[in-house]
């Protein structure tokens, strides 16, 4: 209890908790879950964008997309490393993912169906992620906070690129504009669901806020995202994807319709449009690659043994 009080006091003073510091088991577990899910999201997040890499319409767009996906894999690495400071290995986390015991962001269970989706993913999905991640730069766990700072820089770049890509579509031919509209229509609600259920329904929120694992509430972050995104949609000349959207003078914010949370919970339960494909892709990649990991490990061991023998 004394330790716990001290711990909370440090958090309240906005000191960072570092790997070697004492921390409550539940704090550690919550962080592992949250950072692990975040890492998995980066990895699984390669797939919907990868779906269009082979169809990117110009060499430059292909290069931009490759660079983005490469960054995401890199973010996965930072985050697994951050999780490892909490005493869980990357392989353990990956195994939990493959067994369905850990999640990744539900947004990646939606398909990318036209080229504008790639712009929309950068703009809306990375955009939503950034709103969340900017807040998490102030999270209490040092390695996580530092990973967020690093990741945010790259993500903002992605979001800008995504917006430029969809702008090209929205201001392009009628067919391109239709694709942009279709993308916004399909991805709007999934994007605003990325902040999680309403504060009133969110399971882990309160304790996480106290520990500053979460820094701002789901609804608060969602509102910020909505407020920053609506003017962008309008600038693109696209129809708003939700008839419930309108400026609320009194609140100084946009009102918007509540997404269909039953869909959200269905997706969480594995019934999204792409859950099966995404998890199959990942587990197949992992299983098909076992011989590669084993081979490289065996080679490393041989070399180490040879060095030892030579000494």
């Amino acid at each position, binding site marked *: 209890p004394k330790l716990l009080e001290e711990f909370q006091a440090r958090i309240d003073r906005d000191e960072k908790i570092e790997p070697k510091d004492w921390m409550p088991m539940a704090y550690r577990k919550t962080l592992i879950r949250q950072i692990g899910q975040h890492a998995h999201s980066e*990895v699984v997040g*390669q797939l919907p*964008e*990868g779906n269009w890499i*082979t169809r990117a*319409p110009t*060499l430059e767009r292909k290069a931009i997309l490759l660079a983005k996906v490469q960054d995401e894999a890199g973010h996965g690495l930072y985050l697994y490393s951050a999780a490892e400071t909490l005493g869980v290995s990357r392989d353990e986390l990956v195994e939990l993912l493959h067994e369905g015991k850990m999640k990744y962001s539900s947004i990646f269970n939606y398909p990318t169906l036209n080229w504008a989706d790639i712009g929309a993913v950068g703009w809306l999905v990375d955009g939503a992620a950034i709103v969340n991640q900017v807040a998490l730069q102030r999270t209490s766990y040092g390695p996580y906070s530092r990973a967020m700072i690093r990741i945010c820089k790259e993500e903002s770049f992605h979001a800008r690129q995504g917006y430029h890509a969809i702008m090209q579509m929205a201001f392009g031919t009628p067919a391109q504009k239709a694709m942009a509209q279709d993308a916004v229509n399909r991805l709007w609600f999934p994007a605003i669901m990325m902040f999680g259920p309403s504060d009133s329904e969110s399971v882990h929120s309160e304790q996480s806020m106290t520990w500053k694992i979460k820094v701002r509430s789901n609804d608060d972050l969602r509102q910020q995202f909505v407020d920053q995104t609506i003017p962008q949609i309008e600038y693109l000349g696209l129809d708003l994807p939700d008839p419930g959207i309108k400026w609320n003078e009194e609140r100084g914010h946009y009102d918007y319709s509540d997404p269909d949370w039953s869909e959200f919970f269905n997706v969480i339960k594995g019934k999204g449009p792409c859950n099966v494909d995404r998890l199959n*892709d990942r587990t197949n990649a992992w299983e098909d690659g076992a*011989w590669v990991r084993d081979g490289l490990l065996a080679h490393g061991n041989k070399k180490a043994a040879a060095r030892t023998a030579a000494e």
Partner: protein
Amino acid sequence: MADNALFQFLLRMGDNSLILGHRVSEWCGHSPVLEEDIALANTALDLIGQTQFWLGLAGEVEGKGRTADDLAFLRDAWDYRNVLLCELPNGDFGRTLMRQFLYDAWSSVMLGRLMTSSNERVAEIAAKASKEVAYHVERSGDTVVGLGDGTEESHARMQAALDHLWPYVGEMFDSDEVDAAMVKAGIAPDPASLREEYDALVSKVLSQATLTIPTDTFHHKGGRTGYMHTEHLGHLLCSMQWLQRAYPGATW
């Protein structure tokens, strides 16, 4: 003729990197370990970057106003000039890395020579690309060694990959009148003249990898002349060119 030969030469360089880059990009999100996802995306990215230079210059030399994108996305299979090696399907990770190594080794030797090209633009592109390729060949070579000299299974798979791909290596050293024109103009070496340096590099790495180079000297051809690609290229183009074909004239 000289300009057309240069155009053909540039297409060969650009199509190699375009098609191989495309193949590598197919791995996105599906490789054996996260570090490899990053490395493969990086390789693909470099290759697409090189494509932009080579095909961009090709379009200028041709002088018909075609951009690198026009050349990449609006030619059909028979107009491609990449060697067959670059268009072969990925197969397993071992085959992909073996193909990469066999190509990187050629590319590193070729680019080294092109750095002293009489054509300044060619020399510039080669100088830039050769830094990237030096890294690629080191990396793909290391992986080939690691997997060749790894477990019994990884060794067997890498030997199978080498056996499968070796008949496609020879095409990189074929010479024809295009090459003769390039040699004459001091723009590029005769590909045949790269073989010795290539064999030295490749033998060294493959021997560290405990792999045996097939002795049969037969090789497939038809890619760099466009006479006879494999059936695989047409399928690749269906995806790669889809948007440009379906929505002609749009800006992306």
